[in-house]
């Protein structure tokens, strides 16, 4: 049974499913974040409160955190196994022209994870009571953070890295699930490009607007 659960195919299957689940959450998060652009803190705080208290969302939240932990732990495990598969490297690195971003998934993923730790400490940990802050006014917490230039630089850099991660991740997940099609695979690749640009750009627009214009 272990051989099935931890086979090279199964590990990637689990990783792909967890990754796609995380990807689906991003537009929801972005839609809520757009409420930060309103001058009235009410809608955003209400949405944040709803996300924090509605039972179904709480279940999804547990699934999301589980998916994140599974995606990360499997990603690290797979990467270590991959490094072990070539104990002696080449004197001249592999020059094959391939998907550039696919070579750096572990590093773009690690950067996104680092950002998530910062992000969780700013918001999620306030709610859990680990970090000081008003859990009923995340609007003000977000606005205060976006007014700090250094926070913005880190925020924007992390979203560029997230975009690079997403671009390969989406098309790769479909291939991993066995969904390769003469017509649909190129469509998925175009969609991955659009998604990888649009989602980080959306988050960036919000942070830059608050930083520069509010």
């Amino acid at each position, binding site marked *: 049974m272990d051989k099935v659960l931890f086979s*090279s195919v199964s590990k990637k299957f689990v990783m792909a499913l967890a990754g796609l689940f995380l990807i689906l959450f991003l537009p929801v998060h972005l839609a809520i974040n757009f409420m930060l652009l309103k001058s009235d803190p009410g809608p955003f705080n209400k949405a944040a409160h709803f996300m924090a208290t509605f039972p179904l969302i709480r279940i999804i939240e547990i699934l999301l955190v589980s998916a994140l932990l599974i995606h990360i732990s499997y990603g690290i495990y797979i990467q270590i*196994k991959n490094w072990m598969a*070539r*104990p002696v490297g080449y004197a*001249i690195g592999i020059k094959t022209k391939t998907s550039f971003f*696919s070579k750096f998934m572990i590093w773009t993923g690690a950067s996104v994870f680092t950002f998530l730790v910062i992000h969780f400490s700013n918001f999620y940990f306030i709610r859990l009571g680990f970090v000081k802050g008003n859990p009923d006014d995340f609007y003000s917490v977000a606005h205060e953070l976006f007014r700090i230039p250094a926070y913005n630089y880190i925020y924007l850099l992390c979203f560029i890295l997230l975009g690079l991660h997403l671009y390969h991740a989406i098309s790769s997940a479909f291939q991993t699930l*066995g969904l390769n099609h003469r017509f649909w695979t190129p469509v998925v690749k175009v969609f991955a490009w659009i998604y990888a640009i649009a989602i980080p750009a959306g988050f960036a627009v919000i942070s830059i607007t608050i930083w520069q214009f509010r």
Partner: protein
Amino acid sequence: MKLTLKIWRQKNAKSKGKFVIYKMENVSPEMSFLEMLDALNKKLVETGDEPVAFEHDCREGICGSCGMYINGHPHGPVPAVTTCLLSMRYFSDGDTITIEPWRALPFPVIKDLIVDRSAMDKIQIAGGFISVNTGAAPEANSILVQKKNAEDAFDSAICIGCGACVAACKNASAMLFVSAKISQYALLPQGRVEAKDRVRAMVEKMDELGFGNCSNTGACEAECPKQIKLTNIARLKREYYKAY
């Protein structure tokens, strides 16, 4: 052409290897890469030195034994050819050519540029066949095969098991090779009978031998001398999921 060859020399599996530089003169652009190495070896034998060990057999791109890593590419920088069919006209006078053996945990170096590729055979033995009773060959047209499936199966079956996909993959994954072998049977009615057992056994053996995981980078497809497609890997995945 005058060339500088930087070749990995390693006495045996246990010894530590190193690069040795050889100067070659009068290399004809009409030579194949292996003929150029033959010329080097002739020179080395004449001077009493140990010739460079490299694997070769058919020298017509069929057997898959002549694998070596040339200037950062398995089988050299020209797409869709094996080393034996790589012509020296693709190199220029004064070039330095670095030649290394395949690098992967399941491909230990035996000597110089020769690696032990028996891991590929072990995967094939695990399930890459169809069990049939001996006896007279059945009538070829008694089992009908859709033309497209027959063509796709053939496209997969042309994999020569050279190991270039493993050598090119940043993870040393054998997924393209295994997927080609799975596909060539999965697409044909005769292969469907044992499809589940086959994919389970071959993937399990591949993992057991220490090959890396596929991260869909596509280097295998780009370097495959037989142009085996990534669609085979997606088919392997589907076959694996169906098997459980």
